[in-house]
């Protein structure tokens, strides 16, 4: 098992004819992902390599049976693309796009509450179940099949963690980047819950960062609902207050969202804290 995606996932790519869309669609195909369709309004009937392109998501789903969408459209069209995917009935929507206005995401999130689909992202690297399916922009080769679930708000920081795990022979069940935006689709708790219920996941690495209170809420959830070991890391302990550290959501506002508060919440709730990124592989080896 794995969570959210597996060998059977059929993926369509919104924005497949753009630079990023085509580059990463090819990388996903190369990894073994079953990319069945692309969508670019106005380019229906064309092909991206062997992948048929459609004008609408609805049409792509009807013609190919796609059940997941990977979104690369520019930020002004991000919210619209997500809503179109949700309307088409796909079960999973992975949005890579960075820079979608927060009020757009606020609307999207409320709209999606009435739909039966899961949104991952935006502003995220995507999701991968090693050796089965990659829906995202992460380098596939650093991953290895195994039993550790990884969930993170970041991209390259996740690759760093995964790389250390793989080098120490700890493979991964599924790795998910939930994104660096303040309002996102899937949160830590959704993923933790799924990992808890996944037979193939025996341990979890949770990578958070400053801003908001998602890590604190997740820490309490872990104590109350999980019996699998969790290693936690928080980036941004040295970040100054009031400054946005690259990610739209990574900002300490007044006294809320500090790294220290998140670390304290981790410790209070039985999470194994890694305070030095260079050591996360070693700590995981000890804990798992």
């Amino acid at each position, binding site marked *: 098992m794995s969570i959210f995606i597996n060998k059977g996932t059929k993926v369509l790519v919104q924005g497949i004819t753009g630079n990023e869309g085509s580059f990463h669609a090819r990388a996903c195909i190369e990894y073994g992902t079953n990319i069945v369709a692309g969508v670019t309004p106005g380019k229906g009937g064309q092909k991206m390599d062997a992948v048929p392109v459609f004008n609408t998501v609805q049409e792509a789903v009807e013609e190919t049976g796609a059940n997941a969408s990977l979104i690369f459209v520019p930020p002004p069209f991000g919210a619209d693309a997500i809503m179109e995917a949700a309307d088409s009935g796909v079960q999973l929507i992975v949005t890579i796009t960075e820079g979608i206005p*927060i009020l757009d995401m606020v609307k999207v999130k409320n709209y999606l509450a009435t739909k039966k689909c899961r949104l991952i992202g935006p502003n995220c690297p995507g999701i991968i179940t090693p050796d089965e399916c990659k829906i995202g922009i992460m380098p596939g080769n650093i991953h290895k099949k195994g039993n550790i679930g990884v969930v993170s708000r970041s991209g*390259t*920081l996740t690759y760093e963690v995964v790389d250390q795990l793989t080098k120490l022979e700890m493979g991964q069940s599924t790795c998910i980047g939930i994104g660096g935006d303040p309002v996102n689709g899937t949160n830590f708790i959704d993923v933790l819950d799924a990992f808890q219920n996944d037979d193939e996941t025996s341990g979890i690495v949770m990578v958070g960062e400053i801003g908001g209170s998602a890590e604190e809420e997740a820490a309490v959830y872990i104590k109350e609902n999980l019996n699998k070991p969790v290693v936690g890391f928080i980036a*941004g302990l040295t970040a100054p207050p009031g400054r946005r550290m690259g990610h739209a959501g990574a900002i300490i506002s007044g006294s809320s969202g500090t790294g220290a508060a998140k670390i304290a919440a981790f410790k209070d709730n039985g999470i194994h804290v890694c305070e*030095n990124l260079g*050591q996360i592989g070693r700590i995981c080896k000890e804990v798992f």
Partner: protein
Amino acid sequence: MKIHEYQAKELFRKYNVPVPEGNVAFSVNEAKEAALKLSGFPVVVKAQIHAGGRGKGGGVKLASSIEEVETIGSKILGMTLVTHQTGPKGRLVKKLLVEAGQNIKKELYLSLLVDRATASVVIMASMDGGMDIEEVAQKTPERIIKVYVDPLLGIQACHLRQVGFGLELPVAAMKPFSQLLSNLYKFFIANDCSLVEINPLILTSDDKVLALDAKVDFDSNALYRHKDLLELRDLDEEDLQEVEASEYNLNYINLDGNVGNIVNGAGLAMATMDIIKNAGATPANFMDVGGGASSEQVENAFRIILADPKVKAILINIFGGILRCDIFAKGVVDAARKTNINIPVVVRMEGTNVDEGKKILSDAGLNLISAVDLSDAARKIAEAVN
């Protein structure tokens, strides 16, 4: 993107959110003219900088005559105002807002912001206006009213009543307050704000409500659809190097330490700053060159960091994903050839095309210190500066 109080109040006027009569001034003479245009004395002279706590720092003063406007104006204009939000360096005051004094019966607090957890717009209000709202939230959370607005429905009359009655406003002030809040919500949504804060919102002796202060922050990701707001950006309030970096699409924040660092990805960049601190040194900046940086961007990143006189050594930490290590290495080599690097540079690279990247760096014959992993990099950078 932050704007000044006077700019926020001009926007408030357009949305019929009542504010005191007032004018902006860029010189003492203009401040005097501004005061004379008002309906009488006293007037309030307020320093305009992008930071709170101006009153405590001596940047807000009452003047009861034109002579006082002159003395106070010349004192505040050109002063370096230090508040809890400016940091120890403070900010140079280049603009003043001169406003009509008000008869204040009550000071209240009102703000609108996006609540991350509920994905809605939250109205926050309190009877304890004029104070540090964080402190109120901490000590007496029951004195803060929070009302969540469903963004798909927008603000409803029940929301307005909940806040108005919660603030225990007199009956006569209820209608003007409801109009103010309703208009403020329209302003918030129409302009893609991430925060609008009025502290204090005042109730005057004749039961009017007025925004005595105005703090507005716009969502930078939405500015593409508000070209008019872009004109309100004040580069005087920003760090020059940060402005330059933003022109090259680099995420850069200037900090106080002496270890420059260049990283790809925001999370890894934050973690790299933490590693530097853990090793006993302090980061001079946050620099995220992005997931898919070009070698030209890397070169610019290098140049900006080298231009910072505080920087005594540089740590490069790259995890190649979309940004391939060979592309990155090429950028480093180009930058090194064009600039005279006379400080230690520690490089740690991992990921896509790492061997090609390392080869490019070693073939270039640059004087770089290479690190095998993060712990090794941290140790080496600390040695370089300590």
